[in-house]
């Protein structure tokens, strides 16, 4: 039973580069926490500090109730899965899994039980006497996970474990890992997990809570839906979601009976709820953000029942991409490029549109976000409905 607590954690590498700037985070007992962020944002660094593979330059790290800053890796009760699997190439799968237990001096009988149980859980009993080089990537990754499970650690650490697999396998391993975590938790075994990835789809689907990082600082820690609906700043808004949110420069303007945003020469009215937050910003430059699924043809908007909240603007059609159930539509509004996701059933006028043709598209404005132009902070957070 262990939570992981980071307090003002700082990492300065020997070359003087400060990679982590005072991170505060609590990972609750049994929780599946995902660290996500672009390459080089120090996800791995933080994970490796928790693992005990990197020294901690400042702050306090607790696992359970113990401060572990100066404990060695093996005393922290953690296990880790690496991106390249890191199986011992000269040992059979069985010995790979048993190695840590042997070092810990567990009796042979116990080791055997734990290894066979883990192998059964991961459906790899038939692999036990193979060498790592005789395994496929997916099998090797399962062995790496098995090697962690047998240790019954308090905390599981994963550093981009699926990024070497092909897309299909990645999707199925994603489900497996999530299931495995729930299974361990249901059995009452310790199962706190920290999972590093730069893939926001993995983060959204696997994480119970997600920690979004950028340049060694935490941007937001929240559940996937909250991150999606109520991003605290433009970075989180742009990073979470695919295709990503349209975030374009705009100006707040006054209109009769409320406020609006002006994008180029087009004005879109903002809902009344935004007036409090934006009233003192009339005439100022901001960033206007709206997710592609909140833009649609008048028919799709009507079908979704959001016609009262939407406003229609004339847009210049550029390109469409058929994805099967949806059509990704790229168009210009006020001189800026936008993307929309329209359900195929309501995409009739888009299908017929020619490049450069003017088409009317609806914007669901109470899903729009307004970000400060300089700091990127979400100014409309208070007005957005809670998830």
């Amino acid at each position, binding site marked *: 039973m262990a939570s992981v607590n980071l307090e003002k954690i700082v990492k300065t590498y*020997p070359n003087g580069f400060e990679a982590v700037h005072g991170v505060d985070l609590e990972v609750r007992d049994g929780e599946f926490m995902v660290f996500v962020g672009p390459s080089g944002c120090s996800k791995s660094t933080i994970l490796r500090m928790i*693992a*005990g*593979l990197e020294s901690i330059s400042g702050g306090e790290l607790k696992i359970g109730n113990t401060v572990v800053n100066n404990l060695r*890796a*093996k005393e922290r009760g*953690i*296990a*880790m899965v*690496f*991106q*390249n*699997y*890191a*199986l*011992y*190439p*000269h040992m059979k799968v069985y010995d790979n899994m048993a*190695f*840590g237990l042997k*070092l*810990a001096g567990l009796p042979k009988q116990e080791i055997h039980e734990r290894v066979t149980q883990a192998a059964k859980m991961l459906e790899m009993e038939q692999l036990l006497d193979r060498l*790592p*080089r005789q395994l496929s*990537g997916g099998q*090797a990754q399962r062995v790496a996970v098995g*090697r962690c499970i047998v*240790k019954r650690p308090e905390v599981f650490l994963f550093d981009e474990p699926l990024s*070497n697999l092909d897309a299909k396998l990645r999707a199925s391993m994603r489900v497996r890992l999530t299931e495995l975590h729930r299974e361990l938790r249901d059995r009452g075994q310790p199962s706190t997990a920290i999972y590093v990835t730069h893939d926001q789809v993995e983060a959204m689907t696997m994480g119970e809570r997600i920690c979004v990082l950028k340049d060694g600082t935490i941007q937001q820690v929240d559940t996937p839906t909250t991150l999606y609906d109520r991003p605290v700043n433009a970075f989180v808004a742009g990073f979470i979601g695919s295709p990503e949110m349209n975030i374009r420069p705009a100006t707040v303007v006054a209109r009769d009976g409320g406020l609006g945003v002006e994008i180029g020469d087009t004005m879109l009215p903002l809902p009344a709820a935004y007036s409090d937050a934006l009233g003192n910003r009339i005439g100022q430059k901001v960033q206007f953000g709206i997710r592609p699924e909140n833009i649609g043809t008048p028919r799709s908007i009507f079908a979704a029942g959001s016609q009262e909240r939407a406003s229609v603007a004339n847009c210049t059609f550029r390109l469409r991409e058929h994805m099967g159930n949806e059509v990704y539509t790229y168009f210009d509004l006020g001189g800026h490029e936008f993307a929309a996701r329209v359900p195929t059933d309501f995409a009739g006028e888009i299908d017929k549109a020619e490049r450069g043709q003017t088409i009317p598209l609806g914007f669901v404005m109470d899903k729009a976000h307004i970000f400060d132009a300089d700091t990127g902070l979400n100014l409309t957070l208070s007005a957005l409905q809670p998830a």
Partner: protein
Amino acid sequence: MSSDTVATALPKTRIPSNAEVLRTQRRERISLALRYLILGSVGLLMLYPLFWLLGASFKSNQEIFTTIWFLPRDLTQLLDFSAYYNGWMTRTEFTFATYFLNSFLIVIPRVIVTLISCTLVAYSFARFEYPGKKFLFSIMIGTMLLPPIVLRVPQYLMFKELGMIDTYWPLILPSAFAVDTFFTFLVVQFLRGTPRDMEEAAIIDGCNALQLLWHIVVPLLKPALISVALFQFIWTMNDFIGPLIYISTVEKYPVSLALKMSMDVSGEVEWANIIAISIVALLPSLTVFFLAQRYFIEGATSSGIKG
């Protein structure tokens, strides 16, 4: 209508293409034969001295110095192994059994201490951070550029001080301190090219630095260590100057010195004997090489594990 033309056109085009295939095949076979012929003859040319050596061990002195053809004129001489027997017995009171034993008494301990010292030093250079590491490493590389001759005199004086002249210590002891810089360098480079993940996984599994070395690093280094052992074996086996300087008692001579001694004996030298024993002296190195070859190839194809 277009599908009709395709159907009728097909068989027509197929017949000439068959001939074409045959022509290409023939051309490829000829060029292959030519390539084998050229490579084979060059290879034979390079191996000829070895064949000649083998044949010469069955010839008389007179024939050795007058013919270039490798087989003896009288082929029945090939059944006469007396040169091997005489060479083995030597004209001294010791047989080559003694000299071979002596060689092994030098070579085997030396290979072992080389492996241990190289691994330890390379591990430290490749995996640990400590002050002065860069400086120490450049000094080590520096000694690689130093001609070994330069060290002979001071080393001799040092070992004389230590009372180790006419023992095998001067030939073995230096290797216990990783002075075979080339080998150390080889292992350092190999280790630098090996990902650290496995070692990190082992640290999390609970290894301390020495367990890490023994359970993880040494197995990873196997191909490199086999190369080191092989070269050290062959080079030490063939080393002549070292024993010449330090060993003065005939009873302690290794093979290389004993061979030279057989040539020095005044009076009529039976060259066939010497040649015969030179061939025997090649055998240990050859055997070790062929035993190690399998691991060489394995090491080259399976270094690390696939992604």
